[in-house]
C-alpha cells in the first residue's frame, strides 16, 4: 500500500457502561482506500466506529487521525476535522427541504465553499437536484439515503464512516449505492470504512481490504480474495 495511513485505532477497549464490547480491537485506513468491516450481529462493528468517531470514549487504546491523537475527542470536533459519519438508516432533517439539508454543513462551518460543492454533489446524485425544494420527510428510502450521503459530502470530509449503508435498501438502490462508493473513492479521492452485517458479496465487490469481527475481536484482516479463499467468514457467522 503506497498511500499514507489516514486513520488508525490501536487496541481499543470500549463499550457501554461497564460492559466492554470491544476487547483490544485495531483497525487501519489508508488514503483512497475502501475498507469493509463485516461480522454478525453483536460483533461490535458499530461500537468500534462510534468509538473512532468519538461518540463512545474508549476505556483504553489510542485513535490517530491524520497522524494526530484524537482519542476521546468530541464527535463535533472530529466532524469539523474531516470525518463524515453516516448514521444507520440514512438520517436526514425531515422537516427541512432537500436544499436546506444540503446547506446545513455550510451554516455550521462557514469556511466551506458552497457553489462548487453543491454542483459536485448534484453531479454525483442528479436525482437530488430535481427534489431540492421538496421536504426531506417525503423522500423514498433510497432517495433519503442518497441525501444523507450528500449532506456528509457537503462537509468536504476526508474519510467516510458508513454504518450499514445498504442493509435496508431495495436491490436497485443497493447497486446504485455501491456504485457511488466506488465513485467516491476514485473521483473524490475519499477513504471509506463501511460496515455490513448482510449483503457480504456486495461489500466485498467494492472493498480494497476487509476486516471480519466476531464477539468484540478482530478475526481477520486482508483482501477480499484472501477472505474468499479462507474459512474465516463462515467461522464468524456460523460457529
Amino acid at each position, binding site marked *: 500500500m503506497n498511500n499514507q495511513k489516514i486513520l488508525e485505532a490501536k487496541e481499543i477497549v470500549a463499550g457501554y457502561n461497564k460492559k466492554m464490547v470491544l476487547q483490544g480491537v485495531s483497525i487501519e485506513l489508508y488514503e483512497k482506500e475502501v475498507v469493509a468491516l463485516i461480522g454478525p450481529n453483536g460483533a461490535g462493528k458499530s461500537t468500534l466506529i462510534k468509538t473512532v468517531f468519538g461518540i463512545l470514549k474508549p476505556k483504553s487504546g489510542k485513535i490517530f487521525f491524520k497522524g494526530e491523537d484524537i482519542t476521546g475527542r468530541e464527535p463535533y470536533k472530529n466532524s469539523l476535522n474531516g470525518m463524515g459519519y453516516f448514521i444507520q438508516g440514512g438520517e436526514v432533517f*425531515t422537516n427541512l427541504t432537500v436544499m436546506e439539508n444540503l446547506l446545513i454543513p455550510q451554516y455550521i462551518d462557514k469556511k466551506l465553499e458552497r457553489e462548487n460543492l453543491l454542483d459536485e454533489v448534484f453531479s454525483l446524485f442528479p436525482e437530488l437536484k430535481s427534489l431540492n425544494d421538496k421536504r426531506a420527510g417525503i423522500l423514498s428510502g433510497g432517495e433519503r439515503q442518497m441525501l444523507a450521503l450528500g*449532506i456528509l459530502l457537503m462537509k468536504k470530509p476526508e474519510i467516510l464512516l458508513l454504518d450499514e449503508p445498504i442493509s435496508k435498501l431495495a436491490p436497485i438502490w443497493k447497486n446504485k449505492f455501491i456504485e457511488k462508493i466506488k465513485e467516491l473513492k476514485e473521483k473524490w479521492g475519499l477513504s471509506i470504512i463501511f460496515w455490513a452485517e448482510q449483503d457480504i458479496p456486495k461489500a466485498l465487490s467494492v472493498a480494497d481490504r476487509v476486516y471480519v469481527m466476531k464477539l468484540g475481536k478482530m478475526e481477520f484482516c486482508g483482501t477480499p480474495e484472501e477472505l474468499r479463499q479462507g474459512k474465516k467468514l463462515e467461522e464468524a457467522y456460523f460457529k
Partner: protein
Amino acid sequence: MTLQVIANGLIAGCVYALVALGFGLIYKTTRILHFAHGAVYTAAAYALYFFLISISFPVFISIVLALIIGTLLGISTETFLYYPLHRKKAPYAISFIASMGIYLFLVNLIAMLFGNEVKIIQPGLEKTYQFAGIILTRTQIIETIVFVVVFLVFYIFMKKSGLGRLIRALSNNPELATVLGMNIRKTRLLVFGLGSLLASISGLLVALDIGIDPNIGFSAVFVCAVAVIIGGIDIFEGAVLGAFLLGLIQNITIWKLSARWQEAITFGILILFLLLRPQGILSYKKRMEEIS
C-alpha cells in the same frame, strides 16, 4: 359586541403567541418543558416596573434593560441548570422538576422584593380608538403592532437565515446535527436567548396593559403550553395559531359564561385535541416509518 369580543380575543392571542413561540421553540429544540419560562416573563415585567416606576428611568432605557434581564435569566437557566443536566444525560422529567423549582424560587423572590399586590404601570384610564365599531386601547394597538413586527422578524429569521435553519435542524434531528459538527451548546444558548426574549416582550406588554403580580407567569406558561400542543408541535408557527384560538375561545367564554371558566375551557380543549388530533392543527405529512 361579537366583533369586539373577537378583537379582544385576537389581541389576547397576540400576547399568548409571543410566549408560546418562545416556549415551543425551546421545547422543540431541547425537549425541555421549560416551566421557568413563566418566571422569565414575570421577571421581565417586574424589571420594567423597577426601572420605570421605582427608579424613574426613561421609558426606552427601562424597556431595553427589562428585555436584557429577561433574556439573560433564560440563558442562565440553560447554562447553570439544563445544560449540566443534559451533559449528565438526566431524564427530561428531572429537567422539568428543576424548571419548576427555578420557577417557584424566582416567583417567591419577586414576591419578597416587590410584594404580592398588583402593580400598575399605567394608572388611570387609557386613551381609546374606535375602528368599525370596535374600541381598542392604545396598549392593545401597541400589542398588535409589536406582535406583527416581532413575528415577521422571527419567521424570516427561522426560515431564511443560516442560524434559523440550524435551530430548525437541531430541533428536528439532534443526533445528525452533532454528527455534522454543530456546536450544540451554542445553538441551545441561542434558542434560550431567543425564546426568553419573546417571553420578555410579552411580559412587558402585559405589564403595560393590565398590570402585574408575581403569579402572572403561571397561567401564561400553562396557556402557552396548551397553545403549542393544539397548534402543532412539529411546526413553530403552530404555536401562534394555537394562541389565537385560545385567546378567542377564552374571550368568548368570558362573554358567554364567566372568567372563572377560562382555565377549565382551556384544558377541556387540550383534552379534546389529545384525544382527537394529538399532532395538533398544523403538522407535516409523514411517511409511515417516521410515525413509527
